[in-house]
């Protein structure tokens, strides 16, 4: 006689390698740990950005070592350096070409606020043309500061409901 299975809960003996979770948590977990930066290197900060990719600071520890030089394949733009008005439209265009969801880190004083350049040629903060998630202080910031910003950004992504827009 076959007894009906009355278990409603997950039975690991039957189901095998399955983990039950919330969709939001899974999606955010994926997004958090596979952030592919778009290195928008414009000035000295870009050198520090390169150092972050090197073995000493090793951004690979955070799953963000895949620097994509193509906007289609990256989801986190790191604006590293002085944004001039001549460069600003190109920066915005690259941002527009990135696929959603996307985030922006403004690295260093210049990208955050124009830095020491109070001049006709310099954009006074990249947040005039793209939405910025994390600002990094410093001129240029230490690589650790950028890693800290990345951790902060991961924290933000982890806490943002990823399906709110679709189902609200």
């Amino acid at each position: 006689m076959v007894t009906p299975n009355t278990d409603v809960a997950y039975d690991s003996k039957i189901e095998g390698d399955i983990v039950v979770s919330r969709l939001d948590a899974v999606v955010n977990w994926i997004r958090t740990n596979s952030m592919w930066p778009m290195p928008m290197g414009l000035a000295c900060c870009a050198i520090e950005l390169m150092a972050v990719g090197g073995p000493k600071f090793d951004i690979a520890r955070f799953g963000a070592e895949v620097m994509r030089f193509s906007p289609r394949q990256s989801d986190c733009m790191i604006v590293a350096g002085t944004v001039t008005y001549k460069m600003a439209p190109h920066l915005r265009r690259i941002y527009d070409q990135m696929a959603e969801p996307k985030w922006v880190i403004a690295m260093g004083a210049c990208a955050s606020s124009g830095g020491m350049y109070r001049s006709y040629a310099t954009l006074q903060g990249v947040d005039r043309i793209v939405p910025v998630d994390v600002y990094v202080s410093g001129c240029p910031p230490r690589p650790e500061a950028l890693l800290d910003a990345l951790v902060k950004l991961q924290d933000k992504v982890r806490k943002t409901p990823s399906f709110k827009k679709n189902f609200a």
Partner: protein
Amino acid sequence: MTAPAAADVTSALQAKFPSATSRPSVDHPAFNVPMSEAKTVLQWLRDEQGFDFMNDVTGIDWAEGASPRFTTVWHLYSTTGHLYIRVAADNADDENPVAPSVVDLWPAANWHERECWDLMGIKFDGHPDLRRILMWEGYPHHPLRKEFPLAGIETELPDLEVAAETQAKAIAAPMAGGPFVASSKGEMNLTEAEPRAKDESWNEKKPKPHAD
């Protein structure tokens, strides 16, 4: 090419070009020449006097209202004689100054002339590719002219599509009490370590005094 000596070049130049006059200079030999003769003088300096290196092409703005307002300046160097020479010529037009291009003599002049055009607005006649070099194409001003405010002038962004999307403009930068200058004496004084606005006769609130 023979190595020239400073005195030889000076006398030879003045013998060859009587219209060239000596220009006050604290360092190297310098001459004022008429703009119409500038290129001939420069070519002669290159071919006959061995000034084989074009060091700099730049301009002077004697401020709004002055006439002649613009002076174009060429700095030459002789790699064999180890001698610098400076040649200056006043531009005839005070609004749209024109100078002859020397790109065909020294290819190095290409970017110098583009920079001078971009920032001072001096056109170089005969330049093969006179585009702006620092500001974007179509920018309506020349930022190193004296009447241009240090903070900048509000302008549409170069890319209208992006400007429509972002609503952003090239805006005047806040001077925050500037313009700031470092101490010319170079001493390190911790209370005075930050560069200060020494000259506050003009800033974003008070316009720059007019030349008369």
